[in-house]
């Protein structure tokens, strides 16, 4: 598989008045051609900052270092300003959480979409307008020519997000970074926007990084999932591996916190404690203080990466050979059983086909 984006030991440090803030702490991240990678984690886990660093959209007081940070063959670490501008919007695009504040209130939306194109290409005024109108229609907004002349406040939340998507995709980028694009929308509109993103992804062969903290949305859209905690990826795997064979207690917590349809009256699980202060670097695993499964070593030493399959990687001492036996929460055990059953089913299928 072709890697569109490759990050090795990505670190982002933000200089604040109270000292450095270690927002991203050595993230290894690959995005393969045509896949949707979901990046999940609590607020402040560094998921937005990590992706913004790909586009050079971080504030001036942020310092990005990495062993490698590449888009295809382009090194993203040492770009000039104009090279950066050639990539933004044209190769890597972005859509944002709150479509109202992400659109300029005093500019017609048609013009805002057009801007994404005029900066990268020289095309005639007429052709430009035709392309914008086509693009507006393409994202599912009826009567494009009317919408072209509207201001953001005259559109509904869903329409605004569609406009942002149109703007992001008009120059046919290879990568789309979606930064919680459905969080500010209500559930029915959420589903429509997810549907639209899937459809556009197929149409243009996009690769997508989808940032969210909503596991329901992850299930609906992701091929692979990376779970972030305190600036690190603590577990990454295919959607199936993360949902049915999760290994990290933090991932367990995230999954348990999703309301279940089977027991609607059940009290929701909440993760105890708060995320760690990103200004300090703890000796051990930053999740240890909130982790009911924490071992003594968790407070002493950071866990290494354990590999479970070609695609599944976990940073947790629980997977070490020396760790005594433990039982994950009941719901997680059920998920593991489902996973085993599926694996067996697949093996049987495979043997039949052979």
């Amino acid at each position: 598989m072709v890697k569109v984006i490759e990050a090795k030991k990505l670190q982002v440090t933000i200089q604040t008045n109270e000292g450095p803030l270690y927002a991203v702490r050595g993230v290894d991240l690959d995005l393969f051609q045509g896949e949707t990678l979901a990046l999940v984690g609590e607020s402040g886990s560094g998921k937005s900052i990590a992706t913004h660093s790909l586009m050079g959209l971080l504030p001036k007081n942020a310092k990005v270092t990495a062993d490698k940070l590449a888009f295809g063959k382009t090194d993203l670490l040492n770009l000039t300003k104009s090279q950066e501008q050639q990539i933004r919007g044209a190769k890597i695009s972005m859509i944002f959480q709150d479509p109202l504040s992400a659109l300029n209130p005093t500019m017609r939306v048609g013009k805002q979409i057009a801007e994404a194109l005029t900066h990268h290409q020289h095309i005639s005024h007429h052709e430009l307008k035709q392309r914008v109108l086509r693009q507006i229609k393409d994202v599912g907004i009826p009567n494009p020519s009317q919408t072209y002349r509207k201001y953001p406040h005259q559109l509904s939340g869903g329409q605004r997000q569609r406009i942002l998507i149109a703007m992001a995709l008009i120059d046919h980028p290879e990568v789309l970074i979606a930064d919680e694009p459905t969080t500010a929308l209500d559930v029915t509109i959420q589903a429509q926007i997810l549907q639209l993103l899937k459809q556009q992804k197929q149409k243009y062969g996009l690769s997508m990084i989808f940032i969210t903290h909503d596991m329901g949305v992850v299930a609906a859209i992701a091929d692979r999932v990376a779970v972030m905690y305190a600036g690190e990826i603590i577990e990454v795997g295919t959607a199936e591996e993360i949902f049915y064979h999760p290994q990290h207690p933090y991932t367990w917590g995230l999954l348990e916190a999703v309301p279940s349809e089977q027991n609607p009256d059940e009290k929701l699980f909440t993760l105890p404690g708060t995320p760690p202060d990103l200004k300090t670097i703890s000796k051990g695993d930053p999740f240890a203080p909130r982790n009911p499964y924490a071992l003594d070593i968790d407070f002493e030493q950071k866990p290494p990466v354990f590999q479970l399959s070609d695609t599944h990687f976990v940073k947790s001492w629980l997977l070490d050979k020396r760790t005594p036996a433990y039982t994950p929460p009941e719901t997680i055990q059920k998920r593991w059983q489902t996973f085993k059953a599926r694996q067996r089913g697949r093996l049987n299928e495979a043997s039949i086909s052979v």
Partner: protein
Amino acid sequence: MLKMILRRAVELLISLFLIASATFFLLAAIPGDALSAQTNRLPEQARKQVYKNSGLNKPVMTRYVITMDNMVHGKFGESIVTPGQTMTKVLKEKLPASARLGIQQMLFGIPLGLIMGVLAAIYKNHWIDRFVTVLSLLLMSVPSLVIGLLLQSYFGGKLGWFPIIGWPEGNQLWWGGWSYTILPTLAGGIGYIAGYARLLKNSMLDVLGSDYIQTAYAKGLSGRSVILHHIIRNAFIPVTTSLPVSIAFGITGSVFVESIFVIPGVGQFFVQALTNRDVPIVLGETVLLAALYIVTLFITDILYTVIDPRIKLYES
């Protein structure tokens, strides 16, 4: 639109009536009147006669009705302190000098302040930003009076480039005699530079931190086009709010600059009228200032709708 203008005109009249009434009663309520200083050494009978001549012996309500009736007919009456001086004469003889001075100060100070504000915001934490911040703080803290005196002594006295005092009159009232106007314009205009530089810098920084600016960068726009197409227009919205105040007060004269440069304007005259409780002149001044303010406010309301499509003056 026409309906809107009519409605505003009615509102203007009501506001002026209320403002004039409030001013009248406030003046009546404070101790002393226009004649008390001149007449306190006169014998009782002579004093009564003076009061009777000016009509100040009448009860407050009667005076109020007479004053309002005159005002409706466009007459503010003769000054009690300076006989022969009326609002009409003041407007004709003294206002042009003040208005020209104010307009020149604003035309010099506001654009310069706005440019400095833009630069300070773009080059935040750069030496340009620090320079603008320190300069505007300095200019804001030093009163125009001091700046005026310094300008007089240096450019007027030491270098002898410009006349130290005086103001163009006669057929040069509105145009010409520029050398006389330069120092007063600088002295008062500097305050606008400081105020507007700070205002625009802060609103630019607000806009810079907003999400749609990030979107604009994410689209691949260059810093220049982000500033030109996305930041400036949105940052001007708060500036539009302060313009009516500046214009109304700018035109109606500044006491300090007018007095140190000996400019025959309305600024000092109005302040004297107030300390003398010269009711006709104070009322005239208040109504003039209020009318100017309300009219410029209406104009800026229209400006708002041009700058910000979210604002509508009337439902269509």
